[in-house]
């Protein structure tokens, strides 16, 4: 999922200081699990804004905030509340925020969160980054552990000299990705795979802005 973190409230207030009335949009997917844009956070934001003398014309929790068309349809029921707001606040990720930008071409849209990474929830509201969206997955060659993400240097051919009893030179809180890969491949009896050199990555595979049409072209025409 996409991991988000609430912006510092004072800084956030500074970003919206020119406006008085808002419509709030959360997200039932990642932002709900992150505790940054679910039902309780929408209610808390409404209360906090009102305490600051702002007006909240309504709130809405889309099923999937980054699904632009679906969110637009879901928002139909809130047409009046949206119209009454000077600006929109989106409490999900950067993608959710830009759904709103597309849905509301005439209104300013403000994010209340910072979008951090693509990761997994390991315990309740504890998250670890797992994927760098590099466009060319090598998990098949690295024992299922991603060195592009888990190694601060993104090394592809083994640990650097900074590896230290399984810890990383960048921080002792980081497990050395290549020691993890080594241990796992050893366990799976696949150490020979680790001995094969990996070629430099093709960064063109993650060139920005990426776009993808996953359905058949015929269908697009219709």
């Amino acid at each position, binding site marked *: 999922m996409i991991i988000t973190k609430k912006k510092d409230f004072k800084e956030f207030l500074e970003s919206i200081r020119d406006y008085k009335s808002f419509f709030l949009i959360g997200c039932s997917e990642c932002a709900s699990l992150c505790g940054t844009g679910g039902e309780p956070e929408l209610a808390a934001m409404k209360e906090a804004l009102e305490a600051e003398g702002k007006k909240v014309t309504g709130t809405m929790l889309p099923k999937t905030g980054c699904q632009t068309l679906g969110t637009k349809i879901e928002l139909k029921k809130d047409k009046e509340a949206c119209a009454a707001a000077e600006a929109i606040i989106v409490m999900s990720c950067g993608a959710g925020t830009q759904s709103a930008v597309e849905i509301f071409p005439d209104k300013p849209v403000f994010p209340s969160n910072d979008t951090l990474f693509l990761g997994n929830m390991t315990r309740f509201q504890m998250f670890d980054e797992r994927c760098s969206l590099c466009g060319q997955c090598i998990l098949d060659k690295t024992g299922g552990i991603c060195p592009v993400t888990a190694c*601060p*240097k*993104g*090394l*592809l*051919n*083994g*640990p*650097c*000299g*900074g*590896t*230290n*009893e*399984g810890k990383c*030179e*960048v*921080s002792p809180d980081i497990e050395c990705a*290549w*020691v993890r890969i*080594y241990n796992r491949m050893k366990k799976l009896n696949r*150490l020979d795979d*680790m*001995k094969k*050199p990996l*070629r*430099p*990555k093709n*960064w063109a595979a993650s060139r920005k802005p990426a776009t993808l049409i996953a359905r058949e072209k015929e269908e697009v025409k219709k």
Partner: protein
Amino acid sequence: MSFKSALESGKFVVTAEVGPPKGTDIKKILHEAEALKGKVDALNVTDNQSAVMRISSVSFCKLLLEMGQEPILQMTCRDRNRIGLQSDLLGASILGIKNVLCMTGDHPNAGDHKEAKAVYDIESVQLLEIVDSLNNGKDMMGNELKGATDFYQGAVVTPESVPLEPQLIKFEKKVTAGAKFFQTQAIYDIERFKSFMGHARQFPVKILAGLVLLKSAGMANFMNKFVPGINVPQNLIDELKNAGKEKALDAGIDIMARHIRQLRDEKICDGVHIMAIGAEDKVPEIMERAGLL
């Protein structure tokens, strides 16, 4: 005799290291380099060591060449992408730089520009492959070069790394990628180093044992605690402690000279790489006590 010919002739080779300073005043470092002239076989020039921004390695290597010293260009993958690395390698080649040491490089987090974007587009194994390719007249994409390079390429290895096996797998990858010589991270336990050499001797590469000059017991304890892959045995720490504050450096010089003698006399490896870390003026004395001068 060049560094390459010296190593290949079977001579016990000595390299030392200079770190270009931060700023344009190079009087001190030129003086240090001058003092090593005719004594060491080559001088490593560090590449923004510890991720602290300094004078570029390539330009300082050129100054050493002008002084009649043979440089080993240290090249890390932290600050340049594959285009920058290859371009700088071609540039180093036309300046007459012959030796290149391919390394990953300390993370920016260790240095004085912690907010820098870490590049690592390429890493050490791949950089060795690139050097091999440039030597064969092609860039890494296979495009023909008008004029090939003629580098003698080396790499680093940490014989005391824990766990050791992943490090040995990478060592082997570096050999396959074309490394001709290795300079190791600092070693202090010669018996343990012998067992590493037992493994390394299977491969047709030259190994220079890395030696860091111990200046005090405090420094040894600090390295044991904070520098990955360095392990100073307690008996050496005691030796420094017993020497007393004023004589500690002298004891450190003795320890290194003793290790060099043993490495050479027992033909354990092909040479040594002396890292004096701020005491480069002591290198000739170390060599004298080791019987190398």
